[in-house]
């Protein structure tokens, strides 16, 4: 592993009785794109603010570029932040915004103007220096906010859900732009988001955060295909969640039976013994759909279902069906061939999946989940 630009060691932050960040440790390699993904209230913003220096950890250490950051105020840290609402200074022109940090370092007027103009050109805003901030579009403001930070050549750039305020189309576009910017500048990015698609698309590594802890840190592929916990399986990507009891455990394969008697097989990811309450996750694209039993891949258990509705969404089209025995709703991705475009509500279909591609976790220890 390359030298780490950010190292957090057993970082703890409490607000009164609430443990916002619960003894977190992680490293971010130089030049990589690291995302912290989690639902709102999971502590990711608190963690980011501790890295930026707006909050001081109660315990633990944060080191940036190898330097311990304890008691170093935000204006002395080699870190810059892109704020959620961007926080561009409305009383200044675009160029003055970009040059703000340079001025604080005592750079001369000419040097500031030259550097700001060069930076604006690099983010595709050449000649915008004299514009007012409110004359820019949402995407352009985004780029100014990033330029304002990157012009200072920070060791670390922190981004606090910067795409949250944009509309969907622009968000998709800015995702790609952010990735390209990061690749071009080579700065280490730490990106906070609750949107799993942003985290998967952008990151080299993602930390999935829940209740103040990392559930898993890994590559997007790891999180998607080999989730370490039921939370990660449910949070990252679409997934069908089926809870029940393990009736048999054969090596890595668990046979799960739901309360209403539906049996299915899945690969266990945590220690599971027969009789344990478990939950299994089946990705929509892991299952195969067929009108006839014989069309399904051989050797897999066949499940029956009734079509509830067809969700057409281009390449992401899926069908919602109800498993015949348990009446559970199952989402299955449709193949691109358009083969099932004529499925009707109420039609009986068959589906199966490779147990290797379904994951199973012990349900114990996670409150508010199991119903029985």
């Amino acid at each position, binding site marked *: 592993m390359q030298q780490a630009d950010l190292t957090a060691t057993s970082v703890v932050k409490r607000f009164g009785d609430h443990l916002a960040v619960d003894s977190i440790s992680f490293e971010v390699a130089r030049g990589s794109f690291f995302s912290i993904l989690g639902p709102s209230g999971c502590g990711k913003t608190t963690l980011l603010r501790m890295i930026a220096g707006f909050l001081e950890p109660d315990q633990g250490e944060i080191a940036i570029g190898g330097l311990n950051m304890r008691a170093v*105020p*935000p*204006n002395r840290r080699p*870190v810059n932040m892109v704020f959620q*609402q961007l*926080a561009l200074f409305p*009383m200044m022109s675009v160029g003055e915004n970009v040059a*703000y940090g340079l001025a*604080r*370092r005592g750079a001369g007027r000419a040097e500031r103007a030259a550097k700001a103009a060069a930076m604006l050109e690099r983010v595709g805003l050449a000649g915008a220096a004299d514009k007012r901030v409110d004359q820019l579009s949402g995407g352009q403001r985004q780029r100014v906010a990033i330029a304002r930070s990157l012009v200072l050549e920070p060791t670390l750039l922190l981004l606090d859900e910067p795409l949250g305020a944009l509309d969907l189309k622009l968000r998709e576009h800015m995702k790609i732009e952010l990735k390209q910017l990061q690749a071009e500048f080579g700065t280490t990015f730490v990106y906070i988001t609750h949107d799993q698609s942003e985290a998967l698309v952008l990151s080299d590594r993602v930390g999935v955060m829940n209740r103040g802890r990392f559930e898993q840190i890994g590559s997007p592929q790891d999180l998607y295909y080999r989730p370490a916990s039921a939370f990660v399986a449910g949070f990252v990507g679409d997934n069908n969640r089926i809870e029940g009891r393990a009736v048999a455990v054969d090596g890595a394969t668990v046979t799960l039976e739901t309360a209403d008697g539906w049996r299915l097989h899945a690969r266990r990811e945590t220690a599971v013994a027969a009789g344990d309450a478990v939950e299994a996750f089946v990705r929509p694209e892991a299952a195969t759909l067929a009108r006839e039993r014989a069309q399904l891949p051989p050797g897999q258990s066949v499940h029956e279902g009734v079509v509830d509705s067809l969700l057409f969404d281009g390449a992401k089209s899926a069908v919602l069906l109800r498993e015949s025995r348990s009446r559970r709703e199952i989402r299955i991705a449709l193949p691109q061939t358009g083969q099932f475009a004529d499925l009707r509500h109420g039609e009986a279909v068959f589906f199966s999946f490779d147990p290797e591609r379904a994951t199973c976790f012990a349900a114990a220890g996670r409150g508010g989940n199991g119903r029985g």
Partner: protein
Amino acid sequence: MTGRARPALSRRLGTWLLMAPALSWIGLLIVLPHAELAMLSLKAGSGAPQGGFSLAQYRTFFDEPEYWHTFVRTAWMSALATFLTLCFAFPVAWVIAKVAKGRAAAWLFLACMIPFWISETVRTLGWMILLRQSGVLPMLLTRIGLTAAPVELLYHDSTIMIGLIYTSMLFMIVPLVSSLQSLDDALIEAAYDLGASGPTVLRTIVIPHAAPGMTAGCIIVFMLTLGNYITPTLLGGKNSEWFTEQIYTQFITRFNWGQGAAFGFLLLALSTAMVLVGLRLSGQRFADVMGRG
């Protein structure tokens, strides 16, 4: 055709009716008296409305050093009082707008307002009880041995200044609080994050953002101070030399309405000029300032 005309007519009538109280207020209580005073100030004779057009009343002001000395002093003291009020009110407004949260902010705001439930005269008399030679503060100073005998704390310029600042605080705090509340905390954090120190954040972010509120507060306070009569008179006594006293003397003691009216207009011209200069210096537009404040 009448069917279409009538709603338009009644709407127009409605607008005028709604505006009538404000218009009559301005017309009857502001424009009319000022026109009357303007005419009075331009007449030669004193008191009675006889004689022709003359600038004699204004000439007296410039011929008599006592008058314009008081005039300049009033302007200077008012400007100083305005500046000091701004300096004292800014931290208070900052605490109310940014530091205190929820109920605490409301209580602090209320604490600033409570003195204004009492009339200005009573409040000023309160200061007199505290500061006069036989008052609370001089006695206290003697008791703890700081002064050998009770000293007179009234009738100094600084006493007038304290009274003026005290009277003006609320009118500075209100526009400041509202303009500071509209400042996004993220801007302060962003500036800090980009390497700015506390004073730099204040200079480059907070003050530019709060400038309309600051200007609005300064205009209000300056006008109130310039036209204040009770506070300088009671706290400054004979030494106060406040221009409003000159006007009072002309109208009431000397019954020289023409002279008093001329002085009134000079004060009006002064406050207008100072406000315009202030706006020009701070680069603000009057409409923005009043809209924000």
